[in-house]
């Protein structure tokens, strides 16, 4: 696969309530138990070739005793409910990932960081090896912009794990399109060329940057469109200035 969509992050004030609501709304199942430091993600697989929505939120509220910019952003964008807060792209090699890091004059969050606290951990003890770029104190998500991931081992990719069974469950057949704010030109400028934008099944709505909707195909079912406001609708990206 060339540059592709890997997953979409949905910030939630209560990840179990949000997952329950989304499953009842769409028939999409989810699995639970993955966590990273003060947050957990409930994962909604979207079907082949391997995409998912991660419903993310705080599960350690004591960490809020030591507030920082990222935590405040998460609080602010979930104050009024769920907001899509991250478009997460994927590449198939470290070389491609490093090329993006170089383009952004950044570095890579390495998959082989020996500190388990730096990685997603699952209920079965599995630690997810995942590399991403750009690295830095501020995620590009706060600017409504995507980052890029590379998984050295996709055997246990989040999209392929079994969900809890849910009533009237539908089988997703993959992302059909993702609606994002801004224009193709703005995204091309961020990614380093229009050719990257053309690799992605995106629709642009001209609103503030970020994800606004995800359309998923499903077996024997109409396409499922999941609409939530982008994080930039709650906290304008202008609050953070230019990405650095």
């Amino acid at each position: 696969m060339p540059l592709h969509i890997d997953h979409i992050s949905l910030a939630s004030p209560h990840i179990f309530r949000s997952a329950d609501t989304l499953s009842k709304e769409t028939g999409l199942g989810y699995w639970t138990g993955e966590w990273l430091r003060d947050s957990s993600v409930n994962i909604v697989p979207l079907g082949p070739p391997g995409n998912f929505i991660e419903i993310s939120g705080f599960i350690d509220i004591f960490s809020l005793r030591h507030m920082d910019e990222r935590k405040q952003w998460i609080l602010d964008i979930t104050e009024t409910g769920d907001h899509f807060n991250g478009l997460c792209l994927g590449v198939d090699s470290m070389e491609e990932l490093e090329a993006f890091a170089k383009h952004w004059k950044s570095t890579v969050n390495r998959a082989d960081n020996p500190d388990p606290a730096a990685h997603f951990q699952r209920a079965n003890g599995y630690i997810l090896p995942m590399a991403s770029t750009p690295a830095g104190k501020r995620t590009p998500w706060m600017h409504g912009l995507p980052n890029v991931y590379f998984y050295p081992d996709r055997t246990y990719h989040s999209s392929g794990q079994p969900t809890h069974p849910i009533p009237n469950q539908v089988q997703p057949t993959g992302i059909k399109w993702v609606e994002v704010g801004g224009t193709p030109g703005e995204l091309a400028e961020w990614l380093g060329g229009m050719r990257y934008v053309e690799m992605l099944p995106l629709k642009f709505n001209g609103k503030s940057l970020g994800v606004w909707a995800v359309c998923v195909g499903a077996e024997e079912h109409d396409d499922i469109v999941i609409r939530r406001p982008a994080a930039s609708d709650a906290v304008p990206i202008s609050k953070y200035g230019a990405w650095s």
Partner: protein
Amino acid sequence: MNIHINHFSLGARNAFESAARLRNETGLGFWTGEWVRDISCHMVPLGNGPHGKDAFIEIQCYVDAHAHLKDTRPNYRYDVLSVDNEYNSDYWTGLMLGVDSLSDLEAIAKRLGGDVTPEDSRTNPYNHFQRPDGYVLGYQSAPRYMMGRPAKWPMDMPGIYYYPDVPGRTSNQPVGAAPHLRRPAGVKWVVFGGTNELLSDWMGVDAEKTIPVRFNGKAVGVWEVCVAMADSQDVIIRRPAAASVIADDSKYRRPA
């Protein structure tokens, strides 16, 4: 009336971390995904209870940051978990006893001067434990004190529970696969604070002769749980009782 140990509540800042650490410490597996109101639970079945009514541990943490930030009322459990300890601030936050019928539960509630919680799991699921598959746990408990807990009873005396659905019971759900799991074979004993006289007065029977409990005379609440293992030595789970770090609980009591 048959009174047995139904479950234990273990408060954690991060139940995900706490459950993984407990599994590494003991080999006890857990399952995830159940939640009630602003709390998520990791569930640890303990095996070999009477008639399929195994005991279990519910490891709880708060998952609704906004609800917490907006709540201005004194929060006993939050204040307990704010105190550092050697277990990443895990504290035993409850011993829950079980009975086998609603009439038994009503009799206990009446004796303790309280009510039984309503069975409104179908009309008000948000107040009940919910699972991802849509199951809502329809249990009832007592005593519920709408006008304040009588002053004679400390915080953290055991709640009494009636779980009518045995197959759907928390302890009868499969734990997630994980390396080096061990097989629990039931609760052997519990160390509880206070005295046998106090707990017996609460239970209406001689506590020591009814459940496998020992007393250490410290703050009321659970201090240790010993779990038999079918495939290896017993394990003892030691965490401080919640009440051990709250010198004065008066501000947490609802006015009578």
